[in-house]
């Protein structure tokens, strides 16, 4: 039977998740600054910051498991704890991808031959940042409408990703020496697109936690998008950059 102590623990857990979200937002800001300014020092600092996010996830997971084991929660308490585990997991992934963005910044800074970032990249980044802060606010304020809105935003990010990829492939086909640059930029767009997906997951969890409705996999945005075959081949395997994730 839940006690006042249990309620206090739930409150603390909610605060920890919001704090973790704030830390992820900061990390993404650092990664984007490193990208825009091609600042290798800041990129390294961003990669370092991922540890803090991983610690947050571990602490939240351990605390949640303990609360489930000791309180046998049901209904909204259970949905909060189960959903909170997934929120922490998706936030941690956004942290990983921020570190990957920083790696792209580092890679781009080291190139001798490069072009300007496509204008869509900052637009995508701003949209993703807006999605993340909106999702965290919907979680903190139990705002279902806001969470629902996030699900729609993700489509725009997907669209921009496709546009960047096509434009870059066009540029590379005209000037082969841009291949390394183009490869990094396509990955930057793919990273931002993945962040949008993870943020969407969090928004879906917020809806589940506060309403009990499961909207996972029923929303059209989760369906695969048709990819041009050539671009698909180039991007496959790099989309998540698992190989350079330092977990």
């Amino acid at each position, binding site marked *: 039977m839940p*006690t006042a102590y249990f309620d206090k623990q739930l409150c603390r857990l909610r605060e920890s998740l919001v704090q973790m979200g704030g830390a992820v937002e900061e990390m993404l800001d650092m990664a984007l600054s490193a990208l825009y300014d091609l600042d290798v020092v800041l990129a390294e600092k961003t990669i370092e910051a991922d540890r803090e996010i991983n610690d947050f996830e571990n602490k939240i997971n351990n605390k949640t498991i303990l609360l489930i084991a000791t309180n046998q929660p049901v*209904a909204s308490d259970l949905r909060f704890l189960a959903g909170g585990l997934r929120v922490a997991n998706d936030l941690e992934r956004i942290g990983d991808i921020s570190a990957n963005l920083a790696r792209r910044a580092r890679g781009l800074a080291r190139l001798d031959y490069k072009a300007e970032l496509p204008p869509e990249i900052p637009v995508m980044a701003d949209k993703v940042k807006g999605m993340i802060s909106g999702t965290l606010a919907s979680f903190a304020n139990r705002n279902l409408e806001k969470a629902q809105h996030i699900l729609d935003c993700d489509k725009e990010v997907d669209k921009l990703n496709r546009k960047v990829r096509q434009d870059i492939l066009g540029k590379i086909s005209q000037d082969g020496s841009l291949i390394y640059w183009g490869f990094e930029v396509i990955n930057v767009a793919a990273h931002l697109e993945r962040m949008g997906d993870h943020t969407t997951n969090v928004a879906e969890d917020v809806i589940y936690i506060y309403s009990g409705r499961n909207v996972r996999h029923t929303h059209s945005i989760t369906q695969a998008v048709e990819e041009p075959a050539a671009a698909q081949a180039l991007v496959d395997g790099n989309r998540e950059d698992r190989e350079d994730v330092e977990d």
Partner: protein
Amino acid sequence: MVTATQTAISAQNVDFYYGDFQALKNISLDMQARKTTAFIGPSGCGKSTFLKLLNRMQDMVPGARLAGRILLDGTDMYAPEADPVAIRRRVGMVFQKPNPFPKSIYDNICYGPRLIGIRKAADLDIIVEKALRAAALWDEVKDSLDKSAMALSGGQQQRVCIARALALEPEVILMDEPTSALDPIATSKVEDWIQEAAGNLTIIMVTHNMQQAARVSDFTAFFFLGELIEYGPTDDLFTSPRKKQTENYITGRFG
């Protein structure tokens, strides 16, 4: 036997009074055949009162009055021509505290069958083994059937009571907080039996242990102040209850 209809017992607009006090208010509830239904709610909410109506255990309570209908497999069990003894044979009951008779295990199980005229030892042997197996007790007591049932552990005694109820091959078993007097190991044995029996037998139970309701029942009904607040599949009720009162009760934030 329960026929094609999936409803074992149907309560329709049931009001129940102890004198001037209205203990149940307009309860309508279809309890599914061969499923386990749990009644939950705070003390005094009417869940035990309602359970006891399902095999006419309140008939002798002075000043008690029932309105509405309770159908057992489609037939009104409170109709003037209905025979309470025949109904209780079809709807067995297991109580909160194990209450074996001060007799041998064998005689406990045979008590009902003997009452209805079964005398042949060979027939009784078969009934005893079948009932004890069904109650998941056979392996533990098969070599000591002439031992007093009072000498068994609490969990074993409760399963003797279950076997005693099963010996008459009822369609429905009512259980009033069947494990509240048992330790955790004995409780898990009885819960195992409930889960094993599911699919063959209609079980309707009252429990104060919400985790038990969540674990063993297919459907849960939440009662409060004599009213049925919410009734539905247990999985839904414990993850996403529809009513705020249910949510507050099952999460322990009542009142």
